[in-house]
């Protein structure tokens, strides 16, 4: 396998991975059409393509999987159904499915959840010994997790939310000071997070042409700063964090399927 470095003329990014830069790379093309009936305060489904950059315009840019979030509002509160697929090297797939019941509040605070995880091997056969179901709940302000009959209390107290719910939080955020603990992937506790608004001047420089320059950022323990870019319908169309991008893309699941097949066939090689 020959080593492949950047091609001659491949430019370094030399700046934040912004909508403007991503559009120039061809990785971001603005906001997809708004589905009929989509209401960021009501029911919606959003699918993101997960994509990575390696500091240059062309070298080693790659898809990594997808994230689909279905949000419903009903009498019980907010419910989120999540599908998260990460494609590892040689086509090993890591799938995560989550169902989260949340309070209908500004943080979409999780109340009860269920998480199912799994892996395939490099020939795409499921590995039952690597599948797991985990349940969590908030009881009298205390957070518990149960897995294979083992129940324990998490070192976590409200206010908290999950990263998958945070998309909804950002879409409804009115700019007020909001601090919370992040329960990332419903498994990792990351304290001391808050949201902020990027300055209008900088946002205008970073936004793609014709795009609304509205950016919310998240800073906190154990994450790199995340930027959430919103469209005219207040949808998060793009999330970036250092070298990683989640971009709204109706074809993300199909792209992930193709990526997995290519990796298993040995058609995609990355060297560093």
């Amino acid at each position: 396998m020959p080593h492949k470095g950047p091609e001659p003329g491949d430019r370094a990014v030399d700046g934040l991975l912004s909508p403007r830069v991503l559009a120039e790379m061809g990785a971001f093309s603005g906001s997809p059409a708004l589905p009929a009936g989509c209401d960021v305060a009501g029911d919606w489904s959003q699918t993101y393509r997960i994509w990575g950059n390696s500091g240059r315009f062309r070298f080693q840019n790659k898809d990594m999987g997808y994230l689909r979030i279905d949000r419903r509002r009903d009498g019980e509160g907010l419910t989120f159904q999540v599908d998260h697929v990460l494609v590892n090297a040689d086509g090993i797939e890591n799938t995560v499915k989550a169902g989260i019941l949340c309070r209908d509040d500004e943080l979409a605070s999780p109340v009860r959840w269920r998480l199912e995880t799994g892996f395939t091997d490099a020939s795409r056969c499921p590995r039952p010994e690597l599948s797991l179901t985990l349940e969590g709940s908030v009881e009298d302000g205390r957070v518990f997790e149960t897995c294979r009959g083992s129940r324990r209390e998490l070192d976590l107290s409200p206010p908290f939310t999950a990263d998958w719910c945070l998309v909804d939080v950002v879409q409804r955020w009115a700019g007020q000071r909001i601090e919370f603990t992040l329960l990332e992937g419903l498994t990792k506790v990351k304290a001391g997070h808050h949201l902020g608004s990027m300055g209008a001047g900088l946002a205008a420089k970073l936004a793609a042409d014709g795009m609304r320059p509205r950016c919310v950022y998240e800073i906190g323990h154990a994450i790199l700063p995340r930027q959430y870019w919103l469209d005219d319908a207040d949808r998060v169309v793009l999330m970036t964090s250092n070298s990683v991008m989640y971009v709204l893309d109706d074809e993300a699941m199909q792209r992930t399927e193709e990526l997995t097949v290519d990796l298993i066939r040995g058609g995609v090689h990355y060297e560093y």
Partner: protein
Amino acid sequence: MNTEPSILLIVTDQQHIDTISAFGNRHVSTPGLDWLAERGTAFRQSYCTYPLCSPARSSIFTGRMPSETGVFGNGNNVRTAIPNLGQWIARHTDREPAYSGKWHVREPHTAFVPGFDVIASGINCKGQEGDKSVTQSCEDYVRNYDEGKPFFLAAMYTQPHDIGLWTSYNFRNRLGFPYPELLDDLPPLPESFEPTHEEPARYRKRRSGSGPVDQERAEAYWRYYVWGYYRHVEMVDAEIGRLLQAVEDAGGSEDTLIIFTSDHGEGMAEHQFRTKHFLYDAAAKVPLIISWPGVLPEGREETGELVSGLDLFPTICDYWDLPLPENVKGVSLRALLEDGTRLDRKYVAVECHGGSGQAIRSADYKYIAHNDDPVEMLFNMREDPAETRNLAGSTEHADALRTHRGYLKEWLEGLEVAPSVPDKYRWSPSRISV
């Protein structure tokens, strides 16, 4: 309790030794590693064999120096005559060692690591996403494990290596700081930030042009770099914390020997260096914590004994009562861990630049030499642990210099250098002036 423990080897990528909050760094918060430190022994004089991914990893998995394994740079294979740990375990036991995450000897990420069952392969240079799969696969593995015999599991994280990408987006960003609220809370620059002494030419060359483009605010950008690095460390710490919790929940912590280390360190603005591939302690030292709650002493900090990435292979073999392959250079840390028996070791060695650069660290001094540069460096590590005063030209330290040249000569004479190592990287020990 099993008489032979299960073994969980956790390795991060490019983690500076002083990035664990339990040891006093107040700019980073690492509850996962703090938890492990409370339950084990932390080695504070722990060195990798080579501050670069592939060579250092080749040593962890063989107990041999990179110039012996033939992995004298990134992207080389270990020569076939030398077994890796997975192959060695599979040869001598009925256990199937499992592996998750980054390999890089040779392919960075692969589903096919010799000797191991790869349960997840991670995503190249994307620890931010790929490390989630490493933790998930390892958590699923330990919670489901029911084989009635000890397991060996390697959890090989990519973070905080992604800091290498940080500069692409932040060091050359001409639009200024995107988050002004952070400016008042950036960590200070290290004591050794300003280069102060004579160095080999390749060190000066490496430093040139690698800093921020905004020279007027260069120090702020460097501080922002260190701030960003700490967030990378916290990310992998959160992954490790979750994995450790899973081991505990599965009832395995008292049956499991947990070894945590990193392949190599990170410049972290010391000497105005970032990333790795130089021989100062920032890159050459690595965190190492070994824990077996209820069996080994807990909450212990080993500050005197010099240990090496070479020592993990023989330590693991010792706990599983396996023979050692020929010519392993490391030593088992078992007796030191269990009752404090001191190692019979005068120094540890670190290679770099294909092996053309060598460092010898003894109890009091660190000596650095290159076979293609006349500049030597000698530091008194008790008085100057930040390596800011090169004593190689000092008559007062002439004896120490001679002694350490002698150590280097002795060390090189004992190496079985791989045939694939190019001539330009090889030393002629007989020509070292003692």
